[in-house]
């Protein structure tokens, strides 16, 4: 009888401890708004994939210790259906009804800006991986009372990405060509993002001594032969397929068949995809990823990351690497919360993020936000050896210190 009583007492004590532990593990609600349907789904799914992986890793490691409490991340994932109105509705729900402390997303500049008009007044932090946010993140917008005070751009400014990429492409291709390349054609989709991104990339190439022609194609083009024939007539040294990886993967094989140029650069095409598609060219081809390649990375941390990312069931696609525009910031945000010691002081968290750095997966150099809440890191560029699909040589050129002449940096 005495043993039974002792057993019951121990069980009760164990239950009490378990309940106490459960109480100690409080929930930190974080929102994710991303396209899980509609035409941006390939990019959107990578945001969700990164968020799931980061939340799982943080929770498995014991959660976030803030003051005397431990928080486990609870993700509230909303599909924006590639629709700005749905993004706005989702942001309203997450901010007003659920009370998330921060939101990750979304794929495109105008959606993110629309969301910021809801997250800003509610003092909810927002991490968006859009390089084009540089156009709105200025002194006034990020000031204490500015409408973007709580927004952070988790992708480098476009002039930095363009500068880093242009340097990487030219450094890898120049030794492969009979004479140094002088004439580049930038081939880009004629949508808002394409226009914005290519304006910086053209300037970056010109800063590297290239004469540049810009040829824009209608978005959703599938048959590129007429346009590529036109480019062939321009006799370029390098054709740069810029911005949209899917369009590039459609156009590039057609360019090879027409023999448009003696060398190519494919933006947003991962070596893993190049290999999977068994693409092969008898001329040098360079590739770059947004921001680091999953198919051929020189960094072991990146390789480990993608093993885990794909291990969670994420599909391997041209945009899988986009997930790295979102992953590290969960850990950085968690670190900032721990440092601040409370989860309900967004101003202190913003201040902490701005004065701290974080050594993440995306960059061997610690990440730092500048005064406009923008991060800086390099873009990886790889060259595939001619007549192979799986032999890559990669380079990481650091971004330039300042925008090139004619680029206002915005």
């Amino acid at each position, binding site marked *: 009888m005495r043993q039974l009583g002792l057993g019951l007492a121990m069980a009760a004590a164990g239950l009490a401890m378990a309940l106490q532990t459960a109480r100690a593990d409080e929930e930190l609600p974080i929102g994710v708004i991303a396209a899980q349907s509609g035409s941006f789904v390939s990019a959107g799914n990578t945001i969700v994939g990164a968020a799931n992986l980061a939340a799982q890793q943080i929770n498995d490691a014991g959660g976030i210790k803030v003051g005397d409490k431990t928080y486990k991340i609870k993700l509230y994932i909303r599909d924006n259906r590639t629709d700005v109105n749905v993004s706005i509705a989702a942001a309203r729900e997450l901010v007003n009804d659920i009370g998330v402390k921060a939101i990750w997303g979304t794929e495109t500049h105008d959606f993110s800006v629309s969301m910021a008009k809801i997250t800003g007044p509610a003092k909810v932090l927002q991490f968006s991986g859009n390089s084009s946010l540089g156009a709105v993140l200025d002194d006034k917008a990020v000031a204490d009372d500015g409408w973007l005070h709580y927004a952070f751009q988790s992708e480098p400014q476009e002039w930095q990405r363009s500068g880093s990429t242009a340097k990487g492409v030219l450094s890898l291709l120049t030794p492969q060509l009979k004479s140094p390349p002088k004439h580049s054609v930038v081939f880009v989709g004629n949508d808002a993002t394409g226009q914005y991104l290519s304006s910086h990339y053209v300037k970056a190439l010109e800063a590297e001594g290239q004469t540049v022609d810009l040829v824009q*194609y209608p978005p959703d083009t599938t*048959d590129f032969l*007429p346009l590529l024939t036109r480019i062939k007539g321009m006799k370029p040294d390098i054709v740069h397929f810029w911005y949209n990886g899917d369009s590039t*993967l459609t156009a590039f094989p057609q360019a090879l068949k027409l023999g448009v140029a003696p060398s190519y650069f494919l933006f947003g095409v991962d070596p893993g995809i190049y290999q999977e598609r068994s693409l092969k060219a008898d001329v040098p081809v360079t590739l770059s990823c947004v921001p680091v390649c999953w198919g051929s990375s020189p960094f072991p941390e990146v390789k480990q990351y993608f093993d885990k990312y794909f291990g969670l069931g994420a599909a391997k696609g041209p945009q899988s690497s986009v997930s790295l525009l979102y992953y590290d910031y969960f850990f950085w945000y968690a670190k900032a919360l721990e440092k601040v010691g409370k989860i309900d002081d967004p101003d202190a968290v913003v201040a902490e993020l701005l004065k701290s750095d974080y050594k993440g997966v995306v960059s061997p150099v610690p990440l730092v936000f500048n005064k406009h809440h923008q991060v800086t890191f390099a873009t990886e560029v790889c060259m595939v050896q001619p007549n192979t699909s799986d032999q890559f040589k990669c380079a990481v050129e650091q971004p330039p210190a300042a925008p090139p002449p004619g680029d206002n940096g915005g």
Partner: protein
Amino acid sequence: MDILLQQLVNSLSVASVTILIGIGITLIFGLAGIVNFAHGEFLMVGGMATWFMVGAGINFFLALVFAGLLVGALGYAAERCLFRFTLNRPMNGFIMSIGLSVILQHAVIRVFNEFQKSIADPVGQVWTIGGVDIIAMRAIVVAITAVIVAITYFGISRSRYGMALRASVSDRDTAELMGIPVRRYVTGVFIYGSLLAGIGGALMISLFPITPFTGSVIIIRGFAVSLIGGLGNVGGAVVGGLVLGLVDGLSAGYGYPEWTDAYSLVVMILILVLRPQGLLGGTLGPKAS
């Protein structure tokens, strides 16, 4: 000169896939009286099925046949389960088809994934003749399209089935009184048009990668081709496809390249304003009763 010749050859190959989808639409829209906005998704399903079969080791040309049959079966199911209930209310069918297109896109995403799919070029050769590059697979696509056009044209204009079908379009009630099983003919046209979409999808993926959203882009051109040529008119679809192909090729080569689509649509608008019945004339399309 080489560049101009190359652009003319390009125009022909650009036109061929457009013609194929245009014929399917012109038959279903013009003869069966159904506005199927999901026709582009039928093409996409044909492309995805081809990708899957080629990936499983099946020869491309065999996969093309299977893709046609599969999408033909899909068309049969769609007509029997959905569109036959809207024959007297074409607008209902139109709205229903928009819903069907979204469902098909996301069904494909669910079954496979959202990423672009491609297959290796089944032929892989490029012939250079007089400075003009002719991609062998594109030449094959043009040839297959020509054969399908010929079969369809003679089937519609010369066979008993074709004549009965045209009679049904002219006066459905009288055709029924004459013993023509109009409903069955509508089903047959829908299946045939869908089969062509399946073949079109297979041919398309042999030239370009496709995504679950490819259909929603190409459907606009398909409708443009069928309207330019004249609804229900197979020859018209060929002419419409060639006109759009030529406009695409030459505007991309010599105009503002970013306006390529706009040039095509301006040409379509002009033709429809000047010849509302299309270049070669056709039916009036779906009629509510």
